[in-house]
């Protein structure tokens, strides 16, 4: 039997009840066909929504009445065909290669910020969960720090760390660290006592319990925070680039503001969206691999 998609197994199972083997195959084919058709319908609906949105945008910014009387003016909101042209220019067209340094700079800072945040958040969460008294001492400071509007510190960070990579990474870390830390801490604290007692009857020492029970359990919670962590890391980096930088996607957006160039701005936003979505997708894959033991990834 080929690998069947999850969503139609129930249909296949019900088709086995009271049926002969011969009809079983046709039932299965029908179930498979229905699942495929269902997926096709959903996908085409999604494509049509996107196409309608872009189409309306394009048409309205070409309609004189709208351009004159509303904000539907290519000066303000550009237009899909212009954005496409600009993206082509930036990558392979007139200004071929222009975009790569900006894109890689943002990507690099986001990844470094993410990795640093995950490592420090994970370690801090694990250490603090091992030491309940220290956790009680630090509790008000941590909740306080978490409640702060942390973006208010971005100019200060730029002041201290300059206009380069460092301030972007620190900003990303400043935002993402708490996310990872809290998740790991919570995960590490809520291990059920009977699991630890059971491992002790198997002869586990404290450090064996830490490595075989606490760490994997906490890691599950850390991984659950990753998709959000990567999204927030990107936000942090772009924010730092707004405030002060010489290269990067945030820098491009701020530059296009000063030159009042909506096409540049929309092109950058489009690329940033693609970057964000790709990063989250990759991280989900990684999470899926490492968390393959967890029931929510059951297949």
């Amino acid at each position, binding site marked *: 039997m080929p690998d069947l998609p999850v969503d139609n197994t129930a249909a296949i199972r019900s088709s086995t009840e009271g049926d002969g083997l011969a009809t079983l195959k046709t039932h299965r084919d029908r179930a498979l066909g229905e699942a495929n058709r269902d997926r096709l319908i959903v996908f085409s609906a999604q494509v049509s929504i996107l196409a309608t949105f872009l189409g309306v945008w394009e048409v309205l910014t070409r309609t004189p009445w709208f351009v004159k009387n509303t904000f539907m003016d290519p000066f303000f909101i550009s237009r899909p065909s212009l954005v496409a042209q600009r993206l082509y220019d930036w990558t392979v067209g007139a200004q071929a290669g222009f975009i790569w340094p900006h894109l890689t700079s943002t990507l690099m800072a986001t990844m470094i910020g993410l990795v640093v945040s995950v490592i420090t958040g994970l370690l801090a969460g694990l250490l603090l969960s091992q030491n309940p008294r220290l956790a009680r001492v630090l509790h008000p400071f941590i909740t306080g720090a978490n409640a702060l509007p942390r973006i208010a510190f971005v100019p200060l960070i730029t002041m201290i760390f300059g206009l380069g990579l460092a301030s972007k990474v620190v900003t990303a870390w400043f935002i993402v660290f708490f996310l990872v830390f809290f998740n790991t801490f919570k995960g590490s604290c809520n291990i059920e006592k009977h699991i630890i*007692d*059971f*491992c002790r009857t*198997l002869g586990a020492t404290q450090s064996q319990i830490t490595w*075989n*029970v606490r760490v994997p359990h906490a890691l599950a919670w850390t991984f659950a925070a990753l998709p959000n962590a990567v999204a927030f890391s990107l936000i942090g980096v772009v924010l730092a680039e707004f405030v002060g930088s010489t290269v990067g996607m945030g820098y491009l957006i701020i530059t296009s503001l000063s030159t009042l160039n909506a096409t540049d701005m929309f092109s950058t936003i489009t690329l940033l969206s693609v970057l964000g979505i790709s990063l989250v997708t990759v991280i989900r894959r990684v999470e899926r691999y490492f968390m393959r033991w*967890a*029931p929510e990834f059951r297949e």
Partner: protein
Amino acid sequence: MINVSCVTKIYHSGTRETYAIGDANFSVAKGEFVSIVGPSGCGKSTLLNMVASFMAPSSGDIIVNGSPVLPGKIPKGLGYIFQKDTVLPWFNVAHNIGLGLKFRGVPQDKIADKVNRLLEMAGLKGCYEMYPHHLSGGMRQRVALLMTLACDPEILLLDEPFGALDSNTKMILHNELLDIWQQLGQTILMVTHDLDEAVTLSDRVIVLSAPPSRVVLDHRVDIARPRDVFSLRQSLEFSEHVRQIWTVLGREFKLVGREAIEHA
């Protein structure tokens, strides 16, 4: 093998003191299978927790294998099965079963040998590389049992080990447990709320009273072994044992029931 004398357990909550266990006295001989039954809240699980050293008694002595149980120090050769799932979901079945041996520093190839033998014994060879979430509740409880058996325990404490399973799976596991026990001859102390289960498996059934609990009946189940867990329930002998225990247990159930309503 296990000796519980004059054990009490008082829970403090604020200024209120609750006597969970009033005065527990009993012993379990080497190789014996003993069950403890009683109304809910009578401290059956507490008693088991104290034998395993997870909890300290308020007063009294517990002696396991000749030496007194000290709080936090698990007696040697003791295995414990919980009602709740204790299989670690991040390790596959083989890794889980070998965990106890890994904790004890047994070399990897010896662990693999033993794990293979245990899986074969339990008829779970195909599950070697599976993750626990692929297994049913009954299978996971089997794996938990194998995790414990891998460490060759002389004493098994079972805390409602089949409580979460359906009655069919339960009986299959009863059968397996009896097989294992007959081969290896551990001393088993089991807590259960299922009287049929207690009579099916045990040499002796101890009945605890409503709290503050004490032993109100120590009943010997002299049904010949090996027992067939499936046909046993139809026999008159079985019903007679259940009836005799129930005359005492039923009274305690009633008492707890009335109190629960009065407290509400």
